[in-house]
């Protein structure tokens, strides 16, 4: 792959010019068959698109220009994401760009930056996240995977779970216990691990929709060079927590429920459901829940565009968007009646309809990325200032 050459200074470009350029590029280059896919996109599906973005210099909108990124300001970052979502562009296995890259830039050594950043950018290294464990889900700091320092290596033993697309990845970034502190958040370290290291085993886990989307990752005396520690020993919690911002805005975006609403509307029209006042009432209530949620989302977008940091109140977007999406897919299945429980894609009076996949894929939306209950805890504590 050629290295990125487009070193345009996007600060100098007007917002609307930038939007037009992104839109035109996405419409021209993104594979139509991958628009609005529901499953988490696999590397084999996305690598062509990755390459196009990389060659254009657009794979890392959040990275500085010196590292081959676009260095977008907050306003243009929002535009970039909006245009991707608008066209139904799937998220590639991008944790290297959104998560580990920025953390290496902030906490990594010069040697780590030199080695990992260019390879992450080009797609040579694909990252997955090793955080959750069978006994550490919402209570992540309770993790037990151990990394014991022996000479110049950490010896890692334990297991990670719900690791999305681990079987596509070349590397995993890991939180492991290296010591004991007064608080369970202390004594955790952040490690970069090559998945080809001996002692690592992957077990794909089939989800409710029938896809192998995530994996269990076992570590059996895995030797990780000491130089792969990011940040200070025992201080990995600080490293992992440093990621805030757009991630939390994107996860509350109304695009997915909006798309599901459009599908439901087309199917309902084809089936003549708009003649049923009961259906119309429920459909309209959901439509307004989505539109009103989009208005609330717009408030946070404006805040980001003004360059203001997002506060804990952004958690409300994820709760509202994901719970509304679930209710919508429930109505979709109900509207399908007998056809609503048929597996796969069906023709319903000339409209292509998939009832079950939207229903399935909206189920974990209130579990991943901080469950709805955790988001409510955050709002209760930090926004409503209720006693703990």
């Amino acid at each position, binding site marked *: 792959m050629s290295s990125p050459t487009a070193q345009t200074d996007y600060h100098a470009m007007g917002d609307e010019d930038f939007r037009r350029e992104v839109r035109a590029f996405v419409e021209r280059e993104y594979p139509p068959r991958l628009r609005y896919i529901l499953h988490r996109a696999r590397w084999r599906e996305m690598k062509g698109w990755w390459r196009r973005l990389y060659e254009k210099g657009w794979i890392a909108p959040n990275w500085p220009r010196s590292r081959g990124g676009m260095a977008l300001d907050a306003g243009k970052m929002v535009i970039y994401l909006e245009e991707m979502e608008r066209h139904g562009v799937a998220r590639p296995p991008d944790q290297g760009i959104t998560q580990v890259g920025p953390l290496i830039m902030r906490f990594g050594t010069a040697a780590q930056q030199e080695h990992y950043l260019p390879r992450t950018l080009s797609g040579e290294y694909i990252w997955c996240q090793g955080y959750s464990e069978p006994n550490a889900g919402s209570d992540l700091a309770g993790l037990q995977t151990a990394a014991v320092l022996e000479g110049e290596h950490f010896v890692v033993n334990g297991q990670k779970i719900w690791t999305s697309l681990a079987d596509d990845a070349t590397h995993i970034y890991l939180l492991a216990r290296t010591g004991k502190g007064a608080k369970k958040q202390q004594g955790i370290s952040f490690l970069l691990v090559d998945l080809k290291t001996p002692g690592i085993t992957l077990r794909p886990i089939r989800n409710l929709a029938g896809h192998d989307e995530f994996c269990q990752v076992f570590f059996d005396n895995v030797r990780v060079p000491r130089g792969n520690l990011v940040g200070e020993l025992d201080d990995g919690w600080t490293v992992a927590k440093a990621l805030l911002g757009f991630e939390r805005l994107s996860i509350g975006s109304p695009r997915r429920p909006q798309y599901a609403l459009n599908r439901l509307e087309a199917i309902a029209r084809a089936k003549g459901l*708009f003649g049923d006042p009961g259906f*119309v*009432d429920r*459909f*309209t*209530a959901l*439509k*307004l829940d989505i*539109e*009103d*949620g989009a*208005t*609330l989302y*717009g*408030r946070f977008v404006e805040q980001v565009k003004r360059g203001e940091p997002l506060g804990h*109140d952004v958690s*409300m977007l994820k*709760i*509202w968007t994901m719970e509304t999406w679930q209710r919508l897919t429930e109505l979709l299945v109900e509207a399908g009646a007998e056809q609503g429980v048929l597996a796969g894609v069906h023709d319903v009076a000339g409209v292509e309809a998939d009832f079950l996949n939207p229903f399935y894929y909206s189920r974990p939306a209130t579990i991943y990325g901080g469950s709805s*209950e955790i988001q*409510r*805890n955050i*709002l*209760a504590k930090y*926004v*409503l*200032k*209720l*006693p*703990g």
Partner: protein
Amino acid sequence: MMATSSGTLSTPSAEHRGLLAESVADFVARGTDIARVRRLRGTSAEYDRALWKKMAGLGWLGILVPERYGGLGLGLADMAIVARGLARALIPEPLTATAVAAATALGAAENEALKRAQLPRLVAGDLLPVLAWQEQAGGLDPAAVETRATPFEGGFKLNGTKRFVAGAAQADAFLVSARAGGGVVLLLLPRETAGAALSFEPLADGRAFGTLALHDALVPRSGLAASGAAALEALARAFDHGCAIAGAELAGVMDRALEMSLDYLRTRVQFGKPIGAFQALQHRAVDLHIHRELASAVLEEALDVLDRNPAAPARAAAASRVKARCADAATRITREAIQFHGAIGFTDEFDVGLYLKRALVLTAWLGGATWHRRRYARLAIESST
């Protein structure tokens, strides 16, 4: 405050809206309290004309009235700041009924002489007009009128019954819709007109809807505000603007009810800790907060749309969106507020119940959430076909 600096206020800015909000908060702190609200409950006076004059003095009654008729010529976003702030204090004065609905209908009227004569009096608080346009429970179509206006000595003779007239208690005049020939007319009827009899139906919140029985009540030609399509448009516009500002009032009601609930959760101790430490209550409180934020966001966006004076279908859609969302959020929040407070919430002496009752009335008035969602659905279907 506002009235003296109206020249600089004709271009809305964050700064002037901040000042406006401050003057409303100041007024609420000094000009009214819950004891006054309780005193006026269930009385025939219903509200205080002296306080009404003070509101006029602050320029609030003229926010939506063009400058050439003595008003400030500002927009609904400004009016919403006043309405939301005053609703926190549950004032019984008919701000939305008069300074929004009646002012909008009269402002949209065709009779220039009538507007020049009466709008400045409305702004000054000297004429308190309200709309008398409804007849059937749940009938919110301005064209569904059975009251008849028959030509008589150059004017009109009115016969029929108008119901659900908000703010009627001390109203000086009624903007009455009536059928004349094939169309609808809108007439300004002074309260003390022979043949116009007013009775009252008490409401949950201590106010009352007026019922206006008309038996050969005479209105001179000069009282004809608008006729035909112009009369229906004036009523439709008044309805939509009324819905939006009723939404702002609902927002003020939910603001205060949620505040009271959160204070209670932080201070009420049971089982050795503040009840707000219990997750079951925390999560319910968070959901109410989300509903309040949704309602605020929708209100703000819709006011912005309405102040750009869109065509009738877009105006109606924006108004319905606000009324539906704010009604749902306010009823949910005020109902839950009772539960949060436990037994004390069920007493008349504790204020939180007053917020529930105001939310009930503001929700039913000008159409409830389901009615507005259905109208929104119809508008969406019309605009897509």
